[in-house]
């Protein structure tokens, strides 16, 4: 599980470079995101645009990251592909996370 960080002003964008967050990699995902948010900006935007599949274990891992970071960071999401968006909507987790339509909405500095 590879994630890549990019800082844009006061935001750290963390892009998941993997097509799946499933039971096989849920723990690695959690550890990888925790590692790249240990320092740097407090606002974290998790870019899921390359993730075409997530299962309930993967969803649990995203929730776990939000809980891990809750006292130190804010965690927002961007780039949900159709199946990922469906899992968030069915479980109503879309009401718990701030979810941006695209990167320009999540990080306006990138749009200009």
């Amino acid at each position: 599980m590879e994630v890549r960080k990019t800082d844009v002003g006061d935001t750290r964008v963390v892009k998941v470079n993997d097509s799946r967050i499933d039971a096989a990699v849920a723990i690695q995902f959690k550890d990888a995101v925790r590692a790249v948010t240990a320092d740097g900006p407090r606002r974290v935007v998790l870019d899921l645009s390359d993730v075409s599949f997530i299962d309930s274990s993967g969803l649990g891992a995203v929730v776990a990251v939000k809980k891990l970071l809750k006292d130190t960071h804010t965690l927002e999401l961007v780039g949900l592909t159709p199946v990922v968006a469906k899992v968030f909507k069915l479980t109503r987790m879309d009401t718990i996370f701030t979810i941006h339509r695209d990167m320009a909405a999540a990080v306006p500095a990138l749009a200009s």
Partner: protein
Amino acid sequence: MIEVETDDDAIRVRCLSDMFEVRASLQTLMSDMAGRDFLPEERGTVELVLAEVLNNVAEHAYEERGDGRIELDLTYVPGGIAIALQDFGKPMPGGQTPLGMPANLDVEVADLPEGGFGWFLIGELAKDLSYERRGEVNHLTFRMTLGESAV
């Protein structure tokens, strides 16, 4: 190594209860569906439900041992697919599938649920879910509606 058998209207996969065998099985099933004109979103929904039932077998019936046999038959039927899943692990607690209630999200962030979504998702997306323990074997069957009439 997973075993795969296909014919005109079905695909049968045999694998072990290991996360990577489960993943390989899902990929095999999805590429079979991709060759049959299902939309990517429909395949994604099927993959989600199959991932949940297979992970459940691996985690609970076989208690994460990784060496339990799983047999999954996917049959293409008018208006969708029918699934028959067999394993030889522990029975479902209470002899039935969990109810799969929606998670309570009206809580502090620290108390948000990190699990328990699986059976809820299965219940929302699968139809005619039926579980039976016959001898030492778990049998789970369900259908999914696909195509224009899909939810």
